[in-house]
């Protein structure tokens, strides 16, 4: 396998990543031809998305967030964001939104190909108020109806029955809307068949994540998992998705056999909180790799569903199960629940520290992270580093500053480890 120059020193043949790239390519190709194939297109958000329902009705689903992520990693985000700012969007609002508005302005000609207009906008609300404002804008720009799925925020240990009932009732409304748009009757058996495939992929995804409990870890549960998560985020309910995770698992098995991991020698294990800076993804990873840091767990790959907490789609209760799933995505959890999950990760995945990457764009993720740090450091004695930049806007990535912070943190952590050993 030929690695482009500047790629990571890790030379392993990246089967999972390559297959993921191929699947993404095919998906964007289908989207580019949606009009010719007369396939209805629904726009959805990743957090708690209910793609299986749309799959059952034969929709293609487009995720503006994924487009923004792709533009970020392909270094196309900067100019798109500026286009949206020229239109009046403030420098202080979410870069993903501005990236998407930039695409609307240039008639959806994207680095991933031509993107279709929506036939339906579904704001599956969980986790982010900006979602509402985002699709309100698209609804005006495209003159397309917006369906709101208002998903209650999960605050207490158990979800109250009313919260679940409310979500279920809205899903029934949504089913009726889909019937109207497609002219097809709802096929419950088909949805159950799709959910069975989702469940299989979810089992395998959790196996992938669990591998990071090994010492040393054969995978990076952040810098690699953000690619591995594509399946669980956007290809659930397909056989290809199940096969994809089988391929990833084979790759990991092989890594373990050959003693290869994401870094040459694992020196530090961390739990990562927050989305990565897509426009500077590799540079950001390198800042950790040079210290032999491996992320053994991360919260960002759980935005599409907290399957590692035991959550699964249940084909025997399709609509209820979709409702349960929509409620249980990471950013729809209260800060208290999020902090506890991170602490559990630290224990289970034997991490030395927590690293928080706080992004300006996503207040839903980032507001409260300073309080996490306070809690972890003062109450839990978990060394915690908080660094700031952005997930979409390349202007906020200050590499020299980040390097200084990260170096200082791991120097101190190394010292702490040595003295802990010496003093024991």
């Amino acid at each position, binding site marked *: 396998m030929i690695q482009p120059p500047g790629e990571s020193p890790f030379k392993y043949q990246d089967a999972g990543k390559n297959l993921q790239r191929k699947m993404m390519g095919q998906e964007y190709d289908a989207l580019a031809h949606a009009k010719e194939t007369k396939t209805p297109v629904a726009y959805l958000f990743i957090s708690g998305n209910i793609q299986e329902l749309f799959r059952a009705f034969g929709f293609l689903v487009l995720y503006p967030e994924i487009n923004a992520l792709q533009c970020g990693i392909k270094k196309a985000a900067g100019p798109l964001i500026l286009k949206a700012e020229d239109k*009046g969007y403030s420098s202080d609002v979410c870069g993903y939104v501005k990236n998407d508005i930039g695409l609307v302005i240039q008639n959806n000609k994207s680095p991933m190909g031509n993107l279709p207009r929506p036939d339906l906008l579904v704001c599956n609300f969980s986790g982010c108020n900006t979602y509402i*404002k985002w699709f309100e804008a698209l609804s005006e720009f495209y003159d397309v109806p917006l369906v709101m799925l208002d998903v209650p*925020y999960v605050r207490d240990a158990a979800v109250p029955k*009313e919260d679940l009932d409310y979500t279920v009732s809205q899903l029934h409304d949504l089913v009726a809307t889909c019937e109207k748009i497609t002219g097809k009757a709802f096929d419950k058996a088909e949805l159950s068949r799709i959910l069975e495939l989702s469940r299989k992929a979810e089992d395998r995804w959790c196996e992938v994540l669990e591998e990071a409990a090994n010492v040393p870890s054969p995978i990076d549960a952040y810098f690699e998992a953000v690619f591995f998560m594509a399946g669980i985020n956007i290809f659930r309910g397909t056989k290809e998705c199940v096969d994809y995770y089988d391929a990833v698992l084979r790759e990991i098995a092989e890594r373990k056999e050959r003693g290869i991991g994401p870094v040459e020698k694992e020196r530090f294990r961390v739990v990562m909180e927050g989305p990565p800076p897509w426009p500077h993804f590799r540079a950001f990873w390198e800042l950790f790799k040079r210290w032999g840091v491996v992320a053994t767990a991360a919260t960002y790959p759980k935005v599409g569903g907290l399957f590692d907490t035991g959550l699964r789609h249940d084909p025997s209760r399709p609509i209820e199960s979709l409702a349960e799933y929509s409620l249980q995505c990471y950013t729809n959890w209260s800060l*208290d629940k999020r902090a506890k999950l991170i602490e559990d990760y630290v224990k289970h995945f034997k991490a030395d520290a927590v690293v928080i990457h706080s992004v300006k764009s996503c207040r839903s993720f980032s507001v409260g992270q300073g309080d996490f740090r306070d809690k972890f450091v003062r109450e839990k004695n978990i060394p915690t580093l908080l660094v700031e930049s952005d997930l979409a806007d390349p202007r906020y990535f200050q590499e020299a500053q980040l390097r200084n912070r990260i170096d200082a943190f791991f120097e101190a952590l190394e010292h702490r480890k040595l003295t802990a050993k010496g003093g024991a």
Partner: protein
Amino acid sequence: MSKAPFVERFADLATDPTFPSVREWKAKTGRKAVGYFPVFPPAELIHAAGMLPVGIMGGGTRVEIDHADSRMQSFVCSISRSTLELGLTNRLDFLDGMTFTTICDVARNLSGVWKRNFGQVALSELLHMPQHSNHAAAVEYLTAEFARLLKRLETLSGETATPEKLRDSIDLYNRGRARLRALYQVRALHPERLSAAESSVLARLGCVMPKEEHIKVLDGALEEIQARRARPRDAVRVILEGSFCEQPPLELIETIEESGCYIVDDDLCLGQRWFNEEVEVNGGDPVRALAAAYVNHSSMTSVRHQGQSRRSETLVGRVRRAKANGVIFCSAKFCEPALYDFVLFKEVLEREKVPYLSVEFEEKMGAFESARTQVETFVESVLFA
């Protein structure tokens, strides 16, 4: 320029971050007080449970941020940072509880920070407010949400909020909102009689005063206003939009008015007059009546999805009804809901040829000269267009 009478009389009390009127009320009555972060206040529920609802509207110009910096990033609005600062410096220790609503991601997460830092000593609740209008399941849901909060409020106060008490509270707050609507009517018909700075102070008093007393103050004010005989100025009629949560410094509102504007409608202190019409109980379940009022008759604002009707069209309708010559967007720095809507608003105003100006503010802004120049230029361009 001398201060307008109601500003002179009430501004200090309304914006004092030491909350003297609330402390005094607590000492006098021996009862408890529960704060609410904007925009929507569950005031009737707190009142019916025998406690004082207190609007916590940030630190204004008088609070330095020293401790909240390490918990809240520099890229969030002043009100969330200064409110947390008030909490971390024990300046809200007179509160027995605090409520938040899901108005935006910052407020929602602030409630989580609040719960960790103060949840051990005081009630800390977040209400998920439905994003649907005219929707039966949303009413059902919010009824349950309100009932859950009410139960916790009752436990806190040790008093039962009987249906009678709830009806009385709703009636009381209906009367308060009717007075505030009357103030807005004066400003729409006779803006020379009451400035926006004055009316915002009168509304804001409702944050720190028992509603019974607030109504008395408003009645007195309405009477006084009736007797005012000011001559109309040659001013531009504008709508102020974007101040539904964090409040601009009073000096900024005054600056806009002094620079040649009549602010004939605004969304200042919006939570104080949230419902567009009376909350109708009609002998039914009062909690459900409140929920139905929220879902079906709320003020439409940037923190409330309004279904298929468009925010931009709502604004144009308000401009026409108020016979306004223009719109001044006055939103807090970093306020995402307002900043997103600004683009939609701006586009429709351009299509409809309605002049507009955008003035961003922060709690601690100290200089208003550039705002003055901006508004004066805007006024000239409208007058001589």
